[in-house]
C-alpha cells in the first residue's frame, strides 16, 4: 500500500510513518521542514496550505494519513484556520483527485471538549462556535469537514488520540520534567481527577489499525474515535510517574482548579505580548488537568479491532529507560 503521511515532523506522525515503512508499506512524508526519516520513506517538503503541493504528493497513493496541524495557543485565527481547516480541505481534494479511497484524519478529543468532566465518554460530535480557543475550534471544523467528505468512493475516519506521551515527547513529558527539575511543578486542584493518556506506541498502532480498517463501506467510515490507553489514573499519579521515570523530584504546589482555569485564560491572552514561546499554563491545560477525562474504549476495539499493547506501567518503564540512556 502506498501511503501519504502529512505532518511527519511530529512524534506521533513520524512514528506512524516509520511503523508503516517497517511493515513494508510505501510511505511518502509531506511536511514543511526536512526531518529524519527511516529507510524507505520518501520525503517531500511542502505545506498543506498549498493545494498543488498536496496534490502532487498524493499522486499514486492508496491512502492518506493526515496529521499536519498547527497546535498550541499562539497565533491568529487565520494562522490556525489556514493550516487546520484549509489544509484539511486541500488534503481531501487531493485525495479525490488522486483516486485515494481511504483517509485517516488525525483529530483531537478537544473538538468535543466542553470544559466539564468526561467519565467513560464516547466520541461525541465535534462542537463549533467557541470563542478564543483557536486550536480546538479549527480542529473541530476540520474534523467536520473530513467526516463530511466520507463517501462510497472515499472512506474517512477521524482518530482523536488523548494526551500522547512517551520517550522523546517534548510536549507533555518535556514540560513536566523541565518544571519539576526547576522546582516549579504545579498541581491543578488536588490532582485527583482521573485522566486517561496514550502511550506513544499505542497511539501509533491505533493509527495504523485505523488505516487498515477504513475502507468504503467499513463500520468506522464517517465516524470519529477516541484513542487512549484505557487506563485512567489520577493526574497526581501520572505526573508523579513521569517525574520518577525522569529522575526528577515530585514536589508540586497545589493550585485550586477554578483559579488555575482563570489564570490559564489570562496567561494565554497576555503571554504573547510579553514573552516568546508557548505559555506555561493555558485555560485548556488547566481544564484538562482539573477535571476527569476518560473514555469508552469499546468503539476502537469493536469497530477498528484495536487494543493498546503497552500498559501504562510498561510505558513508564520504557520512559525511564529512555531517560537513563540519554543521561548515559
Amino acid at each position, binding site marked *: 500500500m502506498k501511503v501519504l503521511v502529512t505532518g511527519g515532523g511530529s512524534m506521533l506522525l513520524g512514528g506512524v510513518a516509520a511503523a508503516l515503512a517497517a511493515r513494508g508499506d510505501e510511505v511518502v512524508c509531506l511536511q514543511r521542514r526536512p526531518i529524519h526519516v527511516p529507510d524507505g520513506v520518501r520525503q517531500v517538503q511542502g505545506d498543506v496550505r498549498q493545494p498543488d503541493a498536496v496534490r502532487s504528493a498524493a499522486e499514486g497513493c492508496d491512502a492518506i494519513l493526515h496529521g499536519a496541524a498547527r497546535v498550541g495557543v499562539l497565533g491568529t485565527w487565520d494562522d490556525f484556520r489556514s493550516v487546520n481547516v484549509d489544509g484539511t480541505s486541500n488534503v481531501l481534494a487531493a485525495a479525490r483527485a488522486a483516486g485515494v479511497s481511504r483517509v485517516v484524519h488525525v483529530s483531537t478529543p478537544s473538538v468535543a471538549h466542553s470544559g466539564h468532566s468526561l467519565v467513560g465518554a464516547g466520541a461525541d460530535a465535534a462542537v463549533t462556535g467557541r470563542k478564543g480557543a483557536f486550536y480546538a475550534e479549527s480542529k473541530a471544523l476540520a474534523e467536520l469537514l473530513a467526516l463530511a467528505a466520507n463517501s462510497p468512493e472515499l472512506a474517512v475516519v477521524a482518530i482523536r488520540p488523548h494526551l500522547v506521551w512517551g520517550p522523546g515527547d517534548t510536549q507533555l513529558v518535556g514540560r513536566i520534567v523541565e518544571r519539576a527539575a526547576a522546582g516549579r511543578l504545579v498541581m491543578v486542584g488536588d490532582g485527583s481527577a*482521573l485522566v486517561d493518556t496514550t502511550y506513544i506506541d499505542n497511539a501509533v498502532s491505533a493509527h495504523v489499525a485505523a488505516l487498515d480498517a477504513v475502507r468504503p463501506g467499513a463500520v468506522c467510515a464517517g465516524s470519529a474515535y477516541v484513542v487512549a490507553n484505557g487506563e485512567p489514573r489520577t493526574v497526581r499519579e501520572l505526573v508523579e510517574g513521569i517525574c520518577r521515570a525522569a529522575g526528577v523530584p515530585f514536589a508540586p504546589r497545589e493550585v485550586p482548579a477554578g483559579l488555575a482555569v482563570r489564570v490559564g485564560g489570562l496567561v494565554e491572552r497576555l503571554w504573547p505580548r510579553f514573552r516568546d514561546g508557548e505559555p506555561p499554563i493555558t485555560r485548556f491545560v488547566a481544564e484538562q488537568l482539573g477535571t476527569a477525562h476518560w473514555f469508552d474504549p469499546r468503539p476502537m476495539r469493536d469497530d477498528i479491532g484495536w487494543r493498546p499493547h503497552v500498559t501504562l506501567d510498561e510505558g513508564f518503564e520504557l520512559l525511564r529507560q529512555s531517560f537513563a540512556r540519554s543521561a548515559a
Partner: protein
Amino acid sequence: MPSAADLAAFGLDPSWSRMVQVPGHDGATHRWHVLDRPAEGAEGVAAATVVCLHGNPTWSFLWSRLLHELHPAYRVIAPDQLSMGWSDRVGARRYVDRVADVHDLLAALGVAGPVWLVAQDWGGAIAMGHAVAHPQQVAGLVLSNTGIAVPEGRHAPWLIRLAASHGVHRLVTRSTPLFVRGTPFLPGRPLTRVQRRALAAPYRTAGRRDGVAGFVADVPFGDLHVTKSALDRVAAALPSLRVPVRLVWGSRDPVFNDDFADDLHGRFADVQLHRIADAGHLCVLETSIAPFVEAAIAGAASGPTPAARVADVGESLWSRIEAAADSSSLAVSDAAADEAVNGAEFAERVAGFAASLHARGVRRGDRVAVLVPPGIDLIAVVYACWRIGAVTVVADRGLGLGGLGRAVRSARVKFVVGPKRAVAAARTLRWAPKATAITVGSLRGNDAPRLRELAIDAPTADDPAAVVFTSGATGPAKGVRYTHGQLCAQRDALRALYGITDGDRFVAAFAPFAVFGPALGIATGLADMDVTAPATLTAAALDEACRRIDATMVFASPAALANVLATASGPLPSLAKVRLVMSAGAPVPIETLRRLADLCPLAELCTPYGMTEVLPVADTTLTRRAAVGAGRGVCVGEPVPGCDVLIASTDAGARLQELPVGDTGEVVVHTPWMSSGYDGLWHTQQLARPTHEGRTWHRTGDVGHLDTAGHLWIEGRVVHLIHTPMGPVTPVPLEVAAEAVAGVQRAAAVGIGPRGVQQVVIVIETTADRADGPAAPELAAAVRAAAAPQPVAAVWTTRQLPVDIRHNAKIDRSALGRMMERRLSGSSR
C-alpha cells in the same frame, strides 16, 4: 391542544400528542387529547397495548415517565379525561359517564383486543368500572393509589372531605388553583419544577378548572349520592374479575393510604401488592413504574409460579416446649436480666401468654409486632403467637430506629406487643397507629390450663408464621414471609447440620437466633450485650452466658466475635468448653476464626452461608476453609444437604440460565426451608423467585461460582458487579487480594463510570490511621500488584468504609462507588 414547544418543554415527545374526535355514548362527539406512543416491533416481546387513566387534578402528563421508560414493544395510550387536561370542556361529568367514555375512546381509536389498564386516583375507579363492564377487553390492571370504596372502619380521606365541603369546594378546586397546585406537594418523593409546572399547565384559569371541581363533587360522601351506587355496583363485581391485578402503592399518600391498598387487595381474585415506602400519591410520576408494568405483563404471560411449600411440619415449633412442661431442667437463661426459667416455668409462660393474647383478640393469621427486647419474654411471646396461629413480626433494633419503624409500618400489623414505652412509641411514631397495643405486663396472669380449654387448632404447615427483615444494607429492609412448615424445615436442617442433640445447650448473641433454641428442644442462653450494636459483646459477657447454662454451642455475629477477640484478656473457661461456634450474617475473615480457635480449642468453628430469605445454604468450618486454601472470592463451603444450588447467568433477564461449573454468576437456591417470599413487594418477589424446571428458586443476589470439588465461592453482590469494557468483574476476589497486602485492614472494590465502561477503584482502610485521600505510591503499587491482572484506576484510603448497622460488615459498594466517582471527577473542588 398544547403546543409542540410546550410539550417538548415538559419533556414529552410532541409526536405522541393528538386530538381525537370521539362519538360518545351520550350522543355528542367530543374532542379528546391523547398521548399515543406507538409500539416498535421487538423480538421476544409480545406486543401489548397499555391504556393509562389519570385522576384528579392531573392529565396525561402524569404518565410521562411511563411513556418514556416502558419497553418500546408496547403501545401506550394516555388520554386526558373529558373536561380535564387539553380535552373538550363538557362541564361536570359523572363517574358512570367517565366509565362509558373509556369504551367510546378505545372504539374511536380502533383499539382491538384486550388492553392493560394502568390507572391512578379517580382513573383507577374508572378503570375498574371499565374492566367490570367489558371484562373481555381487559388483559390486566395495574392500579396505583386509588380506591373503589372507603375501607371499613375508616372515614373518607380528610383532604378530600375538606376539598368537597360546602363553602370550600369551589374556592379550592375552581376559583383558586389551590387543589391543582397543592397536589404535587403532597408527601412523597419530590417532583421537579418542570413536572409541577406541566401538571398545572392545562388548568390556568377558573374556567378550565371546571372538571377539577366536578371530579371532587363526584366523590360520594352520602349513601344517596348517585355515584355511590355506581361505585358499589363496580365494587361488588370486582371479585369475579379473572384478570391479574397488580397494585403499586406510594405508602406516604395521605389520600389513598395503605388502608385503601389493603381494601383493594381483598377485592380481587388474582391480586398482588407492592408498596413503595417513600413514594406518595403521585407515585407513578415520583418513581419509575415501567418495570412494574412490564413485570405485570410478563408475569401474566408466564403464568403463576408454584408456591414454595412444605408438605408436613412433622414436629411443631412448640412441641418440645410442651414436651418439657414437667421438666425442672433449665430452659432459657438471660444473663443480662439475671433470670432463668426451667422447662415447666417456660411452658407455663408460653401457654399463659397464648391464652392472654387470645383473650385480647389475637386470632389465627393476625400479624403481631413483637417489640419486646431480647429476653425470656421475647422468646415466650413469639412461641405464644405461633401456638395460636398469629404471625410474628420481629424487627430488631439492628435496623436502626428509622428502619425498624419502616419495617413495622410496612408489615401492617394488627397488634403490637412490647413494654409500655415501645407500644407507646409505635403509636406516636405512627408505626402502627391503628394496631391494638398490648403490654407484656398485661399478658401475665393467665394460666396454662386456660389455653387447653380454648382448644385452639394448631396451625398447619402452610399457615404463615413470621415476617422477618433483611438487614437493609443496600436499601430499605424488606419483609420476608415464613410459614410454619418452612421454619420447621429450617430447624430440622440446622439440627441435622450441626448434630444437635437434647444434651446441647446453646448461647445466642443474636436475638433472632435465640428464638430457635426452644424449637430445637435445647437450653438457650442470652448474653449480656447491647443488641443494637453486636460489636458490644465482650469476651467476659460471652463467657458468663456460657457458664450459666454450661453451653456446648455458641452463635454470634462476625462483628460480635471480633469484639470478643478484642476484649479477651483473662481466661475464659466456659467458652473454652463449647463444642461448636457458629457465625453468620456476613463474611467472617479466616484470621478471626484462627484467633477464635485459641479461645475455643475444642470447638468446631462453623460459618454457615445464607441470608434472611434462606438459611442455611452452605456451611464450612475453619479446618475445611484452611484446607481449601485461596481462590476466586470467599469459600463458603459445600451446599447443605437438601439445599440445591445453581449458578445462573446475570444477563439472561427473568429466565434462569444455568452456567457451567467454574463460571461466575448469580447464586440461586432451592430448598424446603426457603421463605415464602417478600411481603407487600410483588415486583421484588417476581424478580427474585423464578420458576425453573417446575420448581421455584430464590435468587440470592450474590455472585459466585461452584468449583469442581463442589465448593461454593462468593464473589460479591449482583448489584456490586463492576461492568468494565472487558466484561463484569466481581469485587470480592479483588478485595481478598488487596487485604493480603501488608498494612491493608479492609478493602472495597467499586466501579466508577457508566455501566460497560466502568473502571475499578479500590478503597482501603489501613492499619495506620490515615485521612481520606489517594494511597501512598508504594501502597498503591502493592495493591495494584495484588489485583493484577485487573487494572485499577485508583487506590484510595479512607478512615471508615460505609457498612450496615446490623452486621457492621456489609459494605454499601454502590454508595461508595458514587462517592468515588465524584471524588475522582475533579469537579467537586
